[in-house]
Structure formats: structure tokens, C-alpha cells
């Protein structure tokens, strides 16, 4: 019975992540303000990162899963084998860390670009910029 509940909870959270990603995509596609687009981009990357960590999760029947960190130096090889049996997957966590750093680096640059856009057009609405450019080219 408890197995069914756990599986249901896991699948519900997966669907919640996907809905989160879809809402963020909607914001990126159809909001006119660049700041709103930027916020949705951050939500989008964070949802995907959480989802990637979630894929490394492991269900242990007898106890709770352990983080991929040894709490003390193993004295025998059996200790190490027991740790391998209960620890979650470390690889998605390591890849997500890389993704977070690169996402932060690019998002800082995007924020600078938005600031420059605001200084130039005095607004963060993308459609205002388009109208002005059309008028300039028709002149």
C-alpha cells in the first residue's frame, strides 16, 4: 500500500515539474516585458535542474536513501558496499551543478543586455522597440 502511495507521489511531482516548465515556456513566448521573460527563463532552468536531480533519486525499502557523501572514512570494504547500496545517484547532481554555474553566467549577461535595452528605449516592452524600428526604417 505504502509503495503505491510513494510511486503516486513521485509521479505527481514529475507532472508538477513538467507543468512548471510549460508555464515558464508560456511566459517566455508570450509576455511582452523582457523582465518577465527573464524571470520565466530562470524558473524554466530551475525546474529542469530540479527535474534532473529528481531522476537520480533512489527508493530504498528498509531505510532512507543516503546522500552521495560518506559520513566517515570506510574501515572495511563491506562498509563501502553498504554505502553504494543506499546512496542516491551522484552524477545528475554533479551535472546540475555545472548547469547552474553556466546558467548563472549567461543570465547575468542577459540582465546586462536588458538594462542596456531599458536605457535605450526607456521601457522593457519588446513591442515598443519593434514599432520604433519600423518607423525609423520607413523614414
Amino acid at each position, binding site marked *: 500500500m505504502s509503495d503505491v502511495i510513494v510511486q503516486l507521489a513521485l*509521479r505527481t511531482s514529475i*507532472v508538477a515539474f*513538467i507543468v512548471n516548465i510549460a508555464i515558464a515556456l508560456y511566459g517566455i*513566448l508570450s509576455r511582452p516585458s523582457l523582465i518577465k521573460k527573464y524571470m520565466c527563463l530562470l524558473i524554466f532552468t530551475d525546474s529542469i535542474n530540479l527535474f534532473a536531480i529528481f531522476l537520480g533519486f533512489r527508493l530504498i525499502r528498509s531505510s532512507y536513501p543516503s546522500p552521495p557523501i560518506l559520513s566517515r572514512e570506510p574501515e572495511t570494504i563491506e562498509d563501502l*558496499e553498504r554505502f553504494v547500496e543506499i546512496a*542516491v545517484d551522484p552524477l545528475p547532481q554533479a551535472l546540475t551543478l555545472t548547469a547552474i554555474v553556466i546558467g548563472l553566467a549567461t543570465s547575468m549577461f542577459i540582465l546586462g543586455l536588458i538594462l542596456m535595452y531599458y536605457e535605450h528605449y526607456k521601457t522593457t516592452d519588446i513591442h515598443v522597440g519593434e514599432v520604433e524600428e519600423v518607423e525609423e526604417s520607413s523614414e
Partner: protein
Amino acid sequence: MRMKDIIIAISLSLFVLATSFIIAIEEHAAIGTTDIRGLGKSYLYYSYNPWYEYLTSFSLNVVTAIIWDYRGFDTFYETCVLLASIVALISLFRGYVEKTGLPLKGLSDIVKTSTKLVMPLIVIYGAITALHGQLTPGGGFQGGAIVSVVTSLVIAIFSLEYVLKAGLSTRKLTLLRTLGVLCIAIIAVTPLIIAALMGVKAYVFQNMAKENSPVSMPRTLLDSSMAGSILFFNLFELIVAFSGLSTALIVLSLREDELREIFTVREHHE
């Protein structure tokens, strides 16, 4: 406009339905399994394993071992991406002059005093997070991000003026960051230099001795595991992350007067 919204709504709901169906119902991804992938298992098994000396990195934290030992090149390029993005940000704001003497507007004295009390604690916490990256959860980038909270606190509560008075100009921070990346590169090629002097074979980003190369970084420091080069990498990554994020915070929170300066200079050039 109306049509576009409907198309977006329909396609996004189809995306949600299809992805949920594939992942949650058809189980094409491993979710909540009792076993993990073989690659992850081998990392868990060899990360601190004194019985297989040629495959281990002597790091208790498996994630740090993957980041700085097994996938060291990957993380080095990631650090370079961080450096490049800051360079791009500075070149976007080129021509700005750090002005001092603008009217100071901080928060109240109570907030300022409590911030002064908290700041050293944040720095110590960030340093511990970075330097114990091989023993406990944490690492260089996380520590640097924590320490750069101090910069954002000072900018928000005192003003940008105090950051510049403390000597953290973007010029100095750029020097610090470049030195950090240089130190990471030097540590990465140190085994090569030692091996060339000894006349044996070695690899770039080598940490522990391998089967065909006996060069090894120190394994312990003061009776606690230091995991060879991982401690140095974490230390320099702390410096790189702190200076990079602080530069971005300073540049993105420039005052109106300084921003206006950029545009007058740029128009003058055009």
C-alpha cells in the same frame, strides 16, 4: 494576436500531456527505482576506496570527486565560461567610471550595525563550505556564491560607495579572477611538471597516482582527508566565483550618474 495565444495554449498543453505520459505513465525514465545506473554506482564505489588505489580520488564527497577529479576538464571550461560572461558584461558597460562622492543613502543605523556583525560570519561560512568541499556538502562555487552575498548586502544596505571604498573595484576583482583561473591551470599542470623532472609519465588534471604514472598529490592534511588537488581547486574556485559574482553585482547596480556617463561617452564616440 488572439490566434497566437490559442496556438501557444494548445501546444503547451500537448507538451505537458505528452511528456507526462512518456515519463510518468509509460515509465521511459527511471523514477523511484530501487537500483541506480551503473556509472553512478561506480563513482560511488571508487570515490573513496583505499583498496583500489589507482582508481580513487580519496574524496568523501562523491559529487566533488566527480566535479574536480573525474570530470576536471569539464569544470575548468565551466569556470572559463563564468570568466567569459563577466568579460562580456564589462564590455557591455564599457566606458563607465567609478564615481565617489555621490550622496550616501543607506538604511538605518540598526540595520547597518547588525549587518556589520553578520558579515564576518557569512565570510567564514562560505570559506568553510569551500574548503571542506571534499568532506561535507559544498564546494568552491557554492562557497563563492555564499561569500558574494556579503557584497550584495553591502550594496543594498550601505551603498555602492562603501564597496568601492573597501577597495573592491571591478579592476581589482578582474585581476583576482584572472589570477584564480591561472592558479587552477597551474595546479592542473603541476603533475606534468613534476613528472617531467622525475622522468615518468603523467596526465593533466591528475590527482592520485595511476597505474602507469606514480605522480600523486598529497592525500591527507593534518590527519584529515584533503583529496589531493581538490582542496586547491576548491580554494581557487572560491576566489573566482566570489570575484566574478561581485563584479556582476557591482556592474548591475551602477548608479544613475555612472550609467549616464556611459551613454555620453558612447554618443561622443559615435
